[in-house]
């Protein structure tokens, strides 16, 4: 009996990582091009944006909240950065700062709606999502933004995406191979380390977990619960707007998009993260692995010519399995959500 018990325990802790390893081996056998440094870096690049968004969601999940507006914040930042550079002729630094400020402001408003106006998390951020999806289209009357576009008031836009801004999404560092690592991947890794460090190593992070498991107890222990909850949404909004900046730098134009797919992919990554190492709670390391897992799956399947709907199917299946890992298996050992 004891041996069986250990096996379950082992499966819960390392099952997901082993599954990922198995996938990598499987794809490499089927398509040797899969196992190259470039392919590996590319997987990271493809998940950089959703990964950064997912880390933001993780921050809100930790305090027991949920941010549905991140996809819309990201696409709003995409439009805002394009608007700032193409129509207002601003430089890269101003555009980035403006977007980050917008993200932080949206996060702040979300947070205040939730703690001051007592609107439930899902509803407040849902409202914000729709608001932003509409708002980002108003200045251009629903058109995408690109250099040379005709302005609603007549005339054409003369500004361009500055080189420095485009570098954020396109510049590659020499690492082992020439031009190997895109900056966006570096950002993902740095942000993942920062969020992980903040949540796991600082007092603030532990306080946030305490709020997530029992807000009332945390409050009685003298913690400024509302302050930390607002902080979580500000982190989430800021990271989402940063994801949008990277998206704009990659696309090189202000693309009209709802961002719903970004939201869903980011939430999936964060939820898959619950299962990594049997954590059974939101955590930055798991979120990063979750995003990577989805990236590996999609890259491998695309290389094997699998059509897009099988990819959605498999993404969904992975999420369901991950949630079963988290809630059923972990719960049985009494290590469920505290």
């Amino acid at each position: 009996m004891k041996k069986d018990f250990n096996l379950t325990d082992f499966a819960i802790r390392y099952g997901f990582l082993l599954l990922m390893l198995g996938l990598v081996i499987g794809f490499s056998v089927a398509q040797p091009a899969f196992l190259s440094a470039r392919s590996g870096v590319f997987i990271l690049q493809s998940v950089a944006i959703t990964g950064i968004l997912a880390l933001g969601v993780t921050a809100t999940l930790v305090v027991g909240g949920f941010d549905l507006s991140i996809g819309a914040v990201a696409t709003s930042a995409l439009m805002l950065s394009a608007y700032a550079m193409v129509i207002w002729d601003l430089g890269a630094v101003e555009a980035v700062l403006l977007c980050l400020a917008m993200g932080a402001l949206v996060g702040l408003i979300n947070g205040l709606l939730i703690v001051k106006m007592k609107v439930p998390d899902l509803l407040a951020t849902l409202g914000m999502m729709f608001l932003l999806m509409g708002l980002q289209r108003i200045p251009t009357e629903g058109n995408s933004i690109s250099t040379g576009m005709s302005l609603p008031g007549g005339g054409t836009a003369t500004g361009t995406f500055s080189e420095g801004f485009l570098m954020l999404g396109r510049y590659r560092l020499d690492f082992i191979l020439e031009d190997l690592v895109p900056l966006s991947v570096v950002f993902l890794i740095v942000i993942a380390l920062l969020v992980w460090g903040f949540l796991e190593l600082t007092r603030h992070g532990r306080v946030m977990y305490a709020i997530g498991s029992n807000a009332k107890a945390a409050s009685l222990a003298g913690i400024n619960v509302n302050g930390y909850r607002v902080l979580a949404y500000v982190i989430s909004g800021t990271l989402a707007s940063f994801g949008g900046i990277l998206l704009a730098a990659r696309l090189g134009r202000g693309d009209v998009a709802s961002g719903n797919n970004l939201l869903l992919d980011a939430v999936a990554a964060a939820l898959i993260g619950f299962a990594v190492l049997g954590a059974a709670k939101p955590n930055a390391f798991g979120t990063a692995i979750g995003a990577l897992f989805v990236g590996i799956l999609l890259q491998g399947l695309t290389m094997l010519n699998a059509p897009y709907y099988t990819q959605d199917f498999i993404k969904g299946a992975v999420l369901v399995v991950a949630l079963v890992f988290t809630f059923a298996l972990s719960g049985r050992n009494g290590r469920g959500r505290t």
Partner: protein
Amino acid sequence: MISRRIFVSLMGGIALLPGMALAEGAPAPFDNPGKVKIALVRYLSTGDFFQAYLSGVEKQAAALGVDLQVFDSRQDAALQADMVDQAIALGVQGIIIQHGLTESMKDAAQRAVAAGIKVVAFDVNVENPAIPQVEQSDRDLARLALEQAIKDQGETWTAGYVYVPGIAPLDRRDETWKEFKAKYPGITEKAMFGTMDNPIANSVANQARSVLSANPDIQVVFAPYDEFAKGVKIAVDEAGMSADVAIYSADISTADIALMREPGSSWKATAATNPAVVGEVSVRTLAQLLAGETVGASVIVPPTLITQAQLNELNISNMEELGAKLPAFVHADVSVSPWMALPAR
């Protein structure tokens, strides 16, 4: 008497100036266009294409002087059908149905016809003989782009193909692609991929990167939708393969023109129908129906081929200049009756 005759002919001459509208005397009900109410009932509205389509509808409606009401169902099929009923209740004389699903729109369209309202459908088949269908010819779009690919690249190449089944215009473009593959056995399709995940260009770029690293021998990518082409171009640039891969696509926008004109751009040609022109044709077709003229079962707006070389030669940088310098793009001589006023250029 003479002076009076001169006066009348003078008046006629002046009336000729602003257009043909008053010269021949517009038929009823356009002799009093302010009283004519038409409705545009949309299924799809987000994106450059639909925005431009709407502007075409608005301009032509304004040129005719009719009252236009826009209903936007935002991809809600049931709501779109309800909106047709709403338009009927409002007492409009004509309805343009823009996209939608056959199943949900068929009955609603029939109710409108039964109420004596003239109906035109754009890019949706409502299976009703009384309703003409305005179409941009997707098969011609694909054919023009592919013929240019054959001209540039010869008859033997390795291809990547971007396609998402189940979307009517893409399905029609796909038919042409299949015909071309059969006609030119030298074309080998190495990979097929595609997704409609938003933002489409970003998602397709991710896929295209995988495809290109798995199949570095791909020479031509046929991406018959400009969002797809954008995504492929991002991937080609990121992989440093701009010199090795040529992209052929369909549709165009200001952003696309900039991408095609980048130095060393791999995006070689696109075939496009101006969505604004399609919007204008939709309104004119409806106007012909209202005036009691006969209209065929399908009204096809012909596409234009736009190549990278052309854009560079004519130094075209946005849609307005494209219209000004490629006249074929800005006006289609389709569904034009002599009494109609066309939008000002």
